[in-house]
């Protein structure tokens, strides 16, 4: 029986030093794929490598051998001793693995839950796998379902739109005020890790320019250099208030650095363009009364923490919704996988009937005497349609039973009734079928799956019954 397995490490199971060893080299993905292809135990495979996650996803009939193979591939790629690698690995199989894959694609397993990059990385990894012809019926289907699930989670839950860190919350608020941050200017007063993080996020979201003011000018120059911005002295803040759109304050000053009058005077000259103060300092740098001025918004650290709290609570709600979607989809996938199990028997059945038909035609041709092309054709059509009609109902029954618990009995019965398991011919191992030939996207049609997925050995050699 085919198993779907994933072995890998993420930000929870392995420290960054370990993940780095594997994720650093971009050539590792093709290397891993090549190694997986060489491994006879691995039928289909995909290799996902991001800065927070390294994962091999594969299907196998021999889980033990495949595990050993994957472990040695990971060890070889990292260049570390095997024990060290193994300590950080997780392994999941079957529906647990499917659940995990859906979780990863939907960004529920990410370090920052809901971050959108993972889906792109996932798509890239899948693209590689199809290029290398390492994806087959099951992986194709699984990955396409994963994309579908990710889309559902994104559109049906709010999991990806709630910011859960202070600097993200600040960016989100800025977006609700300014809409588009490109071309906006930021004034950073003071320095500090959180303030610089907020500034960096704003820059990452399109802010065009950052000015840095500090009581010690040399420090301002230093920070400004890091942001490719301009350095200002403290006295220049007034003038810069006319230009800036977003002001981040984070000084150690005991009193207010920005007073109400100061802002009020600038407002008219600014032609009332909105001004957003992000006050990360404790004690506060911006007079809270500034918030009462028109088109001016002041958020201090507590306000931002409040936003984050709300978002966190909301996200937990959304995570429940997302989990429901994923479970639903896992069940659906499981159902599909089960229908897949009846496919080999159906294929065998069809082949057996076809071979009987051919043999019987051959045998009767001599008795019929010379025939025209049309007559030959008519006989062909006639016999084919009789054969098809006879096995039509059994095939339908098999498909219907695919999800039922009685499936295996029905399969057994069918194989016995039609004598599908010839004892002398159940040996030769030919199970590479699932890996070859299929292109992504073809896995959606449930019955057009040609390769037998259970033990397919030599059953096609059926013979006519005299």
């Amino acid at each position, binding site marked *: 029986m085919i198993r779907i397995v994933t072995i890998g490490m993420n930000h929870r199971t392995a420290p960054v030093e370990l993940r780095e060893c594997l994720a650093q080299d971009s050539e590792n993905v093709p290397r891993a794929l090549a190694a997986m292809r060489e491994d006879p135990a691995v039928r289909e495979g995909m290799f996902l490598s991001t800065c927070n996650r390294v994962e091999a996803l594969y299907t196998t009939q021999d889980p033990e051998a495949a595990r050993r193979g994957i472990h040695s591939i990971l060890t070889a790629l990292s260049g570390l001793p095997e024990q060290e690698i193994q300590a950080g690995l997780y392994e999941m199989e079957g529906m647990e693995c499917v659940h995990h894959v859906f979780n990863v694609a939907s960004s529920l397993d990410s370090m920052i839950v809901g971050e959108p990059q993972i889906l792109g990385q996932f798509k890239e990894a899948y693209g590689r796998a199809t290029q290398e012809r390492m994806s087959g019926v099951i992986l194709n289907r699984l990955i396409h379902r994963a994309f579908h699930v990710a889309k559902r989670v994104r*559109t049906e839950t*709010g999991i990806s*739109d709630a910011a859960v860190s202070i600097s993200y919350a600040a960016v989100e*608020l800025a*977006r*609700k*005020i*300014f*809409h*588009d941050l490109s071309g906006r200017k930021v004034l950073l007063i003071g320095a500090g890790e959180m303030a610089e993080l907020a500034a960096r996020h704003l820059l990452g979201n399109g802010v065009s320019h950052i000015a840095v003011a500090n009581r010690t000018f040399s420090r301002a120059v230093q920070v400004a250099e890091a942001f490719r911005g301009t350095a200002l002295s403290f006295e220049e803040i007034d003038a810069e208030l006319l230009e800036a759109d977003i002001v981040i304050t984070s000084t150690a000053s005991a009193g207010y650095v920005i007073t109400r009058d100061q802002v009020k005077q600038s407002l*008219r000259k*600014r*032609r*009332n*363009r*909105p001004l957003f103060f992000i006050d990360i300092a404790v004690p506060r740098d911006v007079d809270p009364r500034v*918030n009462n001025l*028109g*088109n001016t*918004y002041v*958020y201090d650290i507590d*306000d931002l923490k*409040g*936003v984050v709290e*709300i978002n966190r609570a909301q996200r937990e709600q959304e995570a429940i919704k997302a989990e429901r979607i994923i479970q639903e989809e896992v069940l659906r996938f499981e159902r599909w996988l089960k229908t897949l199990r009846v496919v080999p028997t159906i294929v065998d059945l069809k082949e057996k009937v076809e071979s009987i038909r051919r043999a019987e035609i051959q045998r009767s041709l001599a008795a019929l005497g010379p025939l025209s092309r049309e007559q030959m054709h008519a006989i062909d059509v006639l016999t084919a349609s009789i054969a098809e009609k006879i096995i039509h109902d059994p095939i339908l029954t098999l498909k219907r039973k695919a999800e039922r618990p009685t499936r295996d009995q029905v399969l057994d019965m069918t194989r016995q009734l039609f004598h599908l398991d010839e004892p002398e011919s159940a040996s030769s191992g030919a199970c590479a079928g699932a890996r070859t030939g299929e292109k992504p996207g073809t896995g959606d049609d449930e019955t057009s799956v040609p390769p037998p997925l259970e033990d397919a050995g030599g059953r096609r050699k059926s013979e006519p019954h005299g």
Partner: protein
Amino acid sequence: MAWLLFRLALILILLATGGMIVFIVRQRKSVFTWSYRILFAGFIVHTLFLAHQFVVLGTAPVLNLKSALGFFAWTITGAYLLFQLRFRLMVLGSFIAPLAAVLMILSTSIPGGEVVAVRPLFKSLWLTIHVLTVFAGDGMFAVAFAAAVMYLLQEHQIKRKRFGSMYRRLPSLDTLDAINHRALILGFPLLTLGMVTGAIYAQQALGSFWRWDPKEVWSLITWLAYAVLLHERLTVGWRGRRAAVMSIACFLLLIFTFVGISLISSDYHSFRSLEGGVTP
């Protein structure tokens, strides 16, 4: 036939409004897409109805309060569709469609028979242009009004730092202010043009440009209010909350001028005298 079209337009607009309201609650994009299509269909049907009326009556089909309300609903829908093209802001529909729907319902529920014959006085191109431009301007102001209401809702949440369910659903302050601004800039020239053509029509039909009847006076006041708002916006740089409040006040004034004065006054602008269109 005409009333069938109107009924159909009414049903479509109500349907679309219902959809838009469901959309703002459930946030399903497909709900919006369908509501938008239905609203668009409703607008087309409504346009056909008005075109038919125009052909039959030979003048802008705005001769009583009933038809005026319907016509207002039509320009509001049109203005919204225009803004939707430009801003692609789905939630705007949830605020504007109900406005059009309410006007449509009022229009059907107000008694007022079909105008059978129109006094030749009303069959003037100037009157048609007057009515069209004034109402087009009003439609724009309705969009400005809706954007202003949305702005105040959103601004309140950001200022007070209390985020309700609307916070995520409403767009950024900047977008809402831009819509308000754009709607004013489009609406004001239309209103101005409407007043000028109205004066020209009055000169032709009644012999004087300006007769100081209450509707004219209040229209002038409304026009001045919008002029002040636009001036402050363009020269002083008013924006945000103050501009939003002012544009809401202006719109209320406009509604008062539109409905209130028409009902109170008995002068020639009142719809009561227009209904007298039946007299030969």
